[in-house]
């Protein structure tokens, strides 16, 4: 490893010594005595200054490959422009004929893009068929949103529902009330607000972007919900490990069977397949026997069951976590999902929330760690059953809960949809297209922010510490990270979400690899006084005679000139 600072190269003495000796011998042979000393000293000094010092400097400097510092400092002031393709389609009856006539065929502002006025066929009730047919009408690309505006009095949507968001990238918006006498501008401005709300739900809103940039941007208004949201979703990472564990504290009473492979294939894998552009997922499962929770549940007489209160939940996981294990080879973050079947003496076991009510799913989750679900089996067998009792776990119910928790933890779930909105559940697909888009937007922004912070801090670090060696591969990683970042920003501006995400992923991979390269260790800290203490005994005895002899030559020359002056006078 070429971490040697200037002090470790003792071979640099040789360029000083050898030529000097040679020249001295030459002078001895050639010159008359009187001038010998003078010319020898001059020659030695010349060799030292011309050859020695540059050679010493060159051989003791640390190798630093060139880095694009100017481009990196540009990245520091990052300005992102995100553009979403929005198509607003007006259905028959939303506009009066006069307004329709005056409609501009293409109206572009920074928020909307109306393509043209088309009149689609609509079925009578909003259902998956309607949604599918709407999707067929306009095949929307990744990141775009299509809003269909229906008349205010339409019966397509129930009374109190303003917006219906489908599984794909389409939404039905009930037109806000407006008078027929209004001119086009007022209609459009009224509609603007509604469409903006729809788009911020389906793509991104101000809060989402601020949360994604949270490690760069100061969060000015931190509400409890926003902070809770930002802490719940796991940070962007190139890969994740998902582990399902079945905890059986009482194998003597219960012999549990769970078809985890099938359940993962049918419930979890579709979601993970859809999320493939974001990260690599690896799923594994295990069964732990005699694993007890850290807290003794209390028996509640009113419901004749054991309960775990919300306060004790913090300590439930700790003793189990020690036994959970993880894949030793990868350093990806792990999401653990535990399924706990209480032992026969502590069944049934219910979880109570802060207001002492039973949690319906009987599960809770911990931000960035995972989730745990308690599965009661006491009703499946009577007291006379032969121990151990064979129990097949209903994977559909379990996976429903785990899937919801997984969506929350990956940041997919939209926690607070605005009033009047109905979001169609994604069902077996696991993930609606627009939810995926939301995640892609926030992930791209987060990746770009993180990568740019990493690169700028790396550049700062390398600038500050002159002793670190910068190898070629690091310079290459940094350059590729910078170019990927620039491409990602450009793609975001153009609205190509898929490409933007891909470039941002490349950028973050390259920047992490560059920052965490093992060779960038600033290990040797040399304070200045130590450097001088090492060099002075080495160079001083040699340089002092040279300097003094030069001074002597100068003083002699001065004296001779003064003599000449006196003589000529």
């Amino acid at each position, binding site marked *: 490893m070429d971490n040697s600072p200037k002090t470790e190269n003792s071979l640099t003495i040789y360029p000083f010594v050898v030529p000097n000796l040679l020249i001295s011998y030459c002078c001895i042979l050639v010159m008359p005595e009187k001038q010998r000393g003078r010319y020898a000293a001059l020659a030695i000094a010349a060799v030292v200054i011309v050859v020695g010092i540059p050679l010493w400097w060159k051989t003791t400097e640390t190798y630093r490959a060139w880095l694009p510092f100017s481009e990196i400092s540009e990245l520091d002031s990052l300005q992102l422009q995100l553009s979403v393709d929005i198509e607003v389609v007006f259905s028959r009856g939303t506009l009066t004929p006069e307004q329709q006539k005056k409609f501009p065929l293409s109206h572009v502002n920074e928020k909307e893009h109306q393509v043209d006025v088309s009149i689609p066929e609509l079925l009578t009730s909003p259902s998956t068929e309607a949604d599918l047919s709407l999707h067929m009408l306009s095949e929307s690309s990744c990141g775009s949103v299509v809003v269909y505006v229906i008349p205010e009095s339409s019966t397509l949507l129930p009374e109190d529902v303003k917006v219906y968001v489908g599984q794909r990238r389409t939404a039905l918006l009930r037109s806000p009330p407006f008078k027929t006498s209004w001119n086009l501008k007022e209609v459009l401005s009224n509609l603007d607000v509604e469409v903006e709300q729809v788009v911020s739900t389906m793509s991104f809103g101000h809060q989402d972007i601020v949360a994604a940039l949270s490690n760069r941007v100061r969060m000015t208004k931190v509400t409890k919900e926003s902070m809770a949201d930002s802490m719940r979703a796991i*940070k962007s990472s190139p890969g994740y490990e998902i582990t399902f564990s079945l905890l059986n504290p009482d194998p003597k009473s219960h012999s549990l069977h769970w078809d985890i492979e099938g359940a993962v294939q049918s419930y979890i894998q579709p979601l993970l397949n859809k999320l493939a552009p974001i990260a690599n997922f690896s799923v594994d499962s295990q069964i732990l026997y005699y694993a007890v929770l850290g807290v003794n549940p209390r028996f509640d007489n009113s419901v004749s069951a054991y309960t775990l209160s919300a306060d004790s939940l913090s300590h439930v996981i700790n003793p189990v976590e020690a036994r959970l294990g993880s894949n030793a080879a990868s350093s990806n973050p792990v999401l653990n999902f535990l399924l706990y079947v209480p032992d026969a003496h502590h069944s049934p076991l219910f979880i109570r929330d802060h207001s002492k009510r039973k949690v319906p799913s009987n599960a809770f989750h911990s931000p960035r760690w995972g989730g745990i679900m308690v599965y009661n089996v006491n009703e499946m067998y009577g007291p006379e059953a032969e121990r151990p009792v064979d129990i097949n776990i209903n994977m559909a119910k379990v996976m429903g809960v785990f899937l919801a928790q997984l969506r929350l933890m990956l940041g997919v779930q939209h926690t607070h949809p605005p009033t009047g909105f109905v979001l169609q559940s994604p069902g077996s697909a696991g993930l609606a297209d627009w939810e995926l888009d939301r995640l892609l937007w926030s992930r791209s922004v987060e990746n770009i922010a993180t990568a740019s912070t990493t690169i700028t801090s790396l550049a700062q670090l390398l600038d500050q510490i002159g002793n670190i060696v910068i190898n070629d591969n690091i310079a290459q990683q940094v350059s590729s990270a910078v170019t990927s970042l620039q491409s990602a920003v450009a793609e975001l501006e153009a609205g190509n979400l898929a490409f933007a995400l891909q470039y941002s992923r490349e950028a973050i991979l390259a920047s992490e690899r560059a920052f965490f390269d093992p060779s960038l*260790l600033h290990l040797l*800290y040399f304070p200045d006084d130590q450097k001088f203490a090492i060099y002075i005994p080495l160079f001083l005895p040699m340089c002092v005679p040279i300097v003094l002899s030069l001074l002597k030559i100068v003083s002699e020359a001065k004296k001779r000139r003064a003599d000449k002056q006196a003589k000529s006078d």
Partner: protein
Amino acid sequence: MDYYNLLTTCAFIHLLVSIPYAYSNYVENKAGQFFSSGHTNNWAVLVCTSRFWFNYRHVANTLSVYRSVKRLGIPDSHIVLMLADDMACNYRNPKPATVFSHKNMELNVYGDDVEVDYRGYEVTVENFLRVLTGRLPPSTPRSKRLLSDDRSNILIYLTGHGGNGFLKFQDSEEISNMELADAFEQMWQKRRYNELLFIIDTCQGASMYERFYSPNLMALASSQVGEDSLSHQPDLAIGVHLMDKYTFYLLEFLEEVHPASQANMNDLFKVCPQSQCVSTPGHRTDLFQRNPGSVLITDFFGSVLLHDMKQLVADVSSQKPKQKDWHPPDGFILGLWTLILLVFFQTYGIKHLKHIF
């Protein structure tokens, strides 16, 4: 003669360099972004830096902190334990597979569930800095890495032999306080911690946290600059000192803490006053955003996974660290050499050097 004296004094004045310590403004701006953040996971890095049988007490120190931290809930996967020597299976240990912290062998801190990540000669300054900054070779297994994120609270405990501004590793190398401060700054740049608690039990331990300049750091040391940290009790059967005073009383304090306890940092600062410890323990909280009274012990020593989002109080108290001793400025040795040279020439006179030419 006079000219030389003038030159000397000029050189000295010229070399009086003053290093500015006023980073509090910078810290406030940087850490303000995180003043209301909480943590979601806990990590601990526990390092014992001395080897040889007579440094038994350092290994016992580290193992007692390890034991407390495990008892309060941090799992092995989140603890990086570095022990420079193996005392439990040392040839000179009359009770093999044990490391005691009390005389009369009351408490065996080795236990039966110890996972040492870096052992023996693997405990070096380089490996320690690599663990902190994350610059490990790709082949390093997960258990040897500090995989913290921006919501991790990290506890770092160092013990061994130290001096003014350095800590000795393995009797052959040392880590300086500047390197440690730079490592923490790199951790901050990459957001590898939310808050960090640094505890050091060595002689002149307070010098190690003097140079910190990254936000959200709290530091405790067992002795001030110029003081030695003393060991506690020898055990006549084992034949060595078992623990250091500061960590002994720290262990006593931590044994009273349980996972749901509400003890806070102000109680930790009171551990081992001078009457018990002989040395004066010190602490540094000016870089820490929260009020120490509102920081629970379990925020660092335990692992409380699911927690309420408390509205944390941003109380930035800017205390500059008290400099008890005058430290010679940098470049002191340069001045010393200049002085030596001048005296040399003055004594021997330039005229004698004529004979060389």
